[in-house]
Every structure is written in C-alpha cells, then in structure tokens.
C-alpha cells in the first residue's frame, strides 16, 4: 500500500526515528522501520518524490512544530525529527535533481574566529537540514578568510554566522566587509545569531537577517528564500 509508506514516513518523522534501531517517542517502536528504511522502500516502490517530501517529511515536521509550540515536545525531540528529515533529504538529493524538483538551496554556517561556542550553531544546522536545506558546517573558531573562500567556492544561497561572545561578535562585521571587498556580498544572504547578537546589531553590520533562536533562524531563512524567489 503506497499511501501507507508515506503515512509511515510522516509518523516516523513525528517520532524522530532515523533508523529501525531508534526508540522514538512512543513505546515499542524499536525494530520497526525508521525514516531511512521507509524512504528507501518508497523509492523502490516508485512513489512520487514530491509526495515523500511534502506529505511525508514536511507533513511530519508540521506536526512536530505544533507539538513543540504546545510544550509537549522539547528541543531534543524537535532535533530528532529534524535529523530524520535531514537524513531523508540526503537520500533523496540525487533524485530530486533528476526529477526537476527545485531544492531549497545551500547554506554555509560557521562560528567566527576566536569563538569556541557551537551548540547553538549545531542546533540551527540540524533544524535547517530538517527544513530541507543542504547545510555545510565549517565548524567553530573559523578564520574570516576561510569563510570568505568557502562562499566564493561553494556559492551558497545563505551564510549563517554565530558568535557567543561580545568580544567576537565584531568578527561578523569583518566577514561581511571582506565579502563586500571581494565583490561576493550580493550573491549570498547573511543571517547572524548568538546570545549577545540582536536585531539592531544585525542591521548595523549590514546582515540580511537575525535569528533569536534556532526556530527563528529557520523562519528568517525561509522568509529570505521566498523573498529571493519573488
């Protein structure tokens, strides 16, 4: 029953189960196929990729978002679901290109030079992958030049910069300035985040967006993405 597989993908995204070994939210899930196995089954059954993505993956994430808003789901629950979607998207990537379905684009993320904090940036990465973006994570304590080079070579649609210290947030301005000097600024939308960062600061350094937390970061990227398309 093809519809069942899509329904099961949706259910397993809600459960946050990447593989059959994941325990998920409810009791007794271990051993049953997870998102990885189900997506492979769906592909083997020639189910429309569009359905897998919209009804299965996005449909599941929508429910997860509601549960999170209601306080029923915690961040680790949300991340488990987002990770499951991220893994599914990786499996689907080659087919997506072939089937002509437009992908959501690539985003490079990094914590700036001299800043060793990366929990927030890692969460944002998982959530962005869960939202269907291809994410390249450069890591933390990343040289300004390394970030600029990556933008030049990878040509991502987005660049996400993170800083957790008041002493390192100025590095974000450095990155933007050097991108400008190299004529790369206009080809990438830049969003910034981190505890000391504010909407005001983001504007002052010429960033395109600011996310107060991981979920807002995804929302800002989505808004910028639709703005780009229009």
């Amino acid at each position, binding site marked *: 029953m093809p519809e069942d597989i899509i329904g099961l993908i949706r259910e397993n995204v809600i459960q*946050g189960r990447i593989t059959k070994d*994941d*325990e998920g939210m409810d009791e007794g899930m271990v051993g049953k196929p997870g998102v990885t196995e189900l997506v492979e089954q769906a592909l083997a059954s020639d189910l429309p990729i569009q359905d897998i993505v919209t009804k299965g993956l996005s449909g599941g994430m929508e429910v997860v978002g509601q549960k999170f808003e209601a306080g029923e789901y*915690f*961040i*680790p*629950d949300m*991340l*488990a679901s987002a*990770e499951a979607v991220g893994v599914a998207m990786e499996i689907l990537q080659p087919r997506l290109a072939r089937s002509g379905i437009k992908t959501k684009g690539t985003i490079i993320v990094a914590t700036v030079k001299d800043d*060793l904090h*990366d*929990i927030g940036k*890692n*969460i944002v990465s*998982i959530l962005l992958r869960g939202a269907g973006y291809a994410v390249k994570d450069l890591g933390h304590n990343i040289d300004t030049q390394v970030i600029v080079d990556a933008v030049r070579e990878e040509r991502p649609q987005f660049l996400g910069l993170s800083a957790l210290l008041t002493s390192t947030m100025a590095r974000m301005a450095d990155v933007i300035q050097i991108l400008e000097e190299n004529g790369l600024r206009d080809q990438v939308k830049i969003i910034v985040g981190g505890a000391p960062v504010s909407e005001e600061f983001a504007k002052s350094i010429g960033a395109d967006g600011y996310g107060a937390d991981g979920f807002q970061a995804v929302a800002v990227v989505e808004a910028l993405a639709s703005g780009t398309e229009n």
Partner: protein
Amino acid sequence: MTRKGLDGGSFKVLTEESISKVHRTAMQVIEEVGFEVQSDTALELFAGAGAIVDREKHLVRLNESKVKELVDVAPSEIRLCGQDEAHDVILGGRRVYAGTGGTALYVYNPTANQTRLASMEDLRCIAGLVDKLDNIHLFMLPTYPNELPVEQVDVNRFFAGLDNTTKHVMGGVYTLEGVKNVIRMAEIVAGSAQALRQRPLISMIACIISPLRIDKTYGDLLVTIARNGIPVACPAEPLCGATSPVTLAGNLVVQTVDSLMGVMLTQITNPGTPVILGSVATSTDLRNLRYLAGSIEMGLLNAAGAQMAQFYQLPFYATGGMTDSKTLDAQSGYESALTALLCALSGANFIHDAAGLMEFAMTVCYEKYVIDNEMLGMVMRAVDGIKVDDDTLAFDLIKQVGPGGNFVAARHTRRFMRGEHYQPTLSDRDSREDWEAGGRKTTWERAAEKVKELLANRRYSLPDATRQQVFAEIEDIVD
C-alpha cells in the same frame, strides 16, 4: 508521570543510637510516669490487657515487654483505598505519600486579600480540586462547615469528600453518632460492610491529647472506630515548651508515648485494626503560646517521627507542608517546602497537611493547593533520588560526544529528560520578555487561573443510585 509511594529515607535526622535513646525514654515514661485515660471504656480495655491501672487517677502504666507485645499486633503496612483503585496507597516502610489536612475554619481569598468562614461548598470544591491535582495523593477533609450543627458535621464532611473525589478520604470526627453514620454511609458507597473492610475508602483520626492523656471523647471515638475495623490515625500534638519539653528530643519522647498509647488502645480493642502512628508535633511561639505550622523544627520533629515509626514498624502520619504566613508570599513557599521536604526525605508515609494550609493551620486557600501540588511534585522528585547505573552514568555517550560536544541532540537525552527531571506545571521558567508579555503574573496569580480552570472542569460525583441510597438511609445530609 506521577511519583508516589517511593521509598524515602535518604535523610536521617536521628542516628540509630538516638532512636534507641528516645525509645528507652518513652518506655520509661509509660512504665514509671503512666498515662491518663479519661474514657472508662478505654481504661477497662487497658486493664483487661494486663496494664497496671489506677482507676481513681485514671492512670495506665505498662512495662516495655507489654508495650512491645501490643504494638507488634498492629499491622506494619496498611492499604487506604480510593474509589478509583489507581488512587490506593500503601502506608508502611519508608514509602512516601502526601495529602491534604485540616481542619481549618477559614478560607483565604488572595485576590481580595481577605478570609471568610469555611462552608460545606468549600469542602466540595476543594475535594473536586484535589481530585485533579496529581501530587496530592490522599484527600483529608480540610475544613469545618461552620453553618452546620456539630451532630451533622461528620456525615456531611465525609459525604462531601466521597461525592467529589475518587481519592481516599480521611477525616477527623466529632461525635460517636457521627462516626457510626459515616461508617454506614461508606458501607453504602463501598457496596457492603464487608466491601468497606476489604477496601477501606475512608479512614478516621482520633487525637491523643499531649502530654500523656487520652480524653473521654477521643478515647470513646478511638474505641468505636477500632471496633468497626476502620483504619484510624491517632496522632499527638506535643508543642515544644507548652505541652512537651521545649527540647526537640523531649518533644519526641512525648510524641512517641502519646501516639503509641493510641496504637495500643486500638489493638486491645480489636487486634489487627489498621492503625497509623501519628505526629502533629511542632514548636510554640513562646512570646504568645501560639501553635506554629511552618517552623523548621516542625520539619525535624516529623522527620524524626518517621524514623521512630520505622523503628516500631508502624505506618506513619506526619505533618508538614504548612505555613504561618497570612498570604501567598515567600514565607508561605519556603515554610511549606522545607517542612514537607524534611518529612518526605526521611520516609514519612503520609505527610498530611501538605497542601492548602496556612496561618497556624486555621485557614486554607484554594490557590495554595495548586501551588503545593507543584511543590510536592518537586519534593517527590527529591525522594526519587539519583539512579546510578550504566545507562544513567552514560559513559558510552560521553565518549561518543567527546570534548566540546553537546548532548542536546543525543537520543539518550530524549530517553531520560522527562523522567530524570521534574516537569513543572505552575512554575515560571519563561524569559523575562515572555513573562512580561504574559502579564507579569506571580505564582499565585497563575495558580488562581488554574483553580478556575480545574473547578470549571470538575467534577466527580457518586453514581446516582448510590447517592439516592445514601440520601434514603442516612439522615441530615445536605446536598
């Protein structure tokens, strides 16, 4: 998840040696000083059981081996049942439960910042409220209905409890006739006299009057309850410097003697009667001889009482979780939490008065039931302690995550986060921005909202046929 009946005992205010000294002194008091028993019925029962009785002075003395013999007859574990079996509790050992207590005369309204006399409707509402508050495991009748004549009070109080909550209903009693009517009513609710004995939906309290005295009324009540095989607590209320020595150890001796005398009377009357050793011991404000409900010494005394009950292998009724504050302020929170926590960590079986009570136990407050429900949830989490095994030590996970990593996205976090960490239902953990946007509500304001919601969503009521039968067979019930 609701935590109840977990083993406490991680806190021991008394050493083994101290327990033994309190015990020896208590035995010395029972043997050498004796105990006054004003009820003739009770006095003759003691005489028949081999006590040395001075009928002129109404004085009873027993030696240690006699005490041991009588105390050993009492069950070390008793089951108190709810109309819903899920609410059954088993008192004994170091298992910890918390419940309401009484008997307050007033109700405090924090919105008006005023108190008023408590009524029958308050009993119904509070029973309905407690029915929905998971961390309050037993319902003890909390208020006195001021509008009723005393001969109608017992049966109406218990009816209000049974008709509004499926949790076990315990209560103090006032008249012999009342006790009999309450038992008849409970038999109807249980289905039969036998069914009530098998699954006691109610239990009673008969107080011992410290120091060293069983008065006529309570002596007769205790005998009547025991004859009927209804579970009964016989707490004593020695007050430091007033009705007991001012020292905590001296208070503990009086408390132990007094409650043991009650336990022994029930076992002489009806061997095997489910009986609960009890303590309402506390401090006195020696500037005005006021009974104190929120002193830290009260927490210590009742924690120690739990250890004495464990020593005698008797179920224990402790007192904690109250405040002397007149309002829902910081004092109300810290006094309630500290006293309840001390009792719980020492393994007190039933911490009574643990919700809703303030102002020398004279007043209850609806909002405080909701606040205390949260506090008791935290207390029960503390009783649960720290589980140490391979899964919780999480070496494999620490290895996998490594230096500088994080545990937010780990499956292990997901698996354990809800069980290992108490999930608040009332406390504010919002950011300042969200808290301000939500109207800057204080604890009691949030509690007031919850009270409204819970009262709107009640209520349990006895099955119609049962209600009709109760009205037909029991007089004076006000509906």
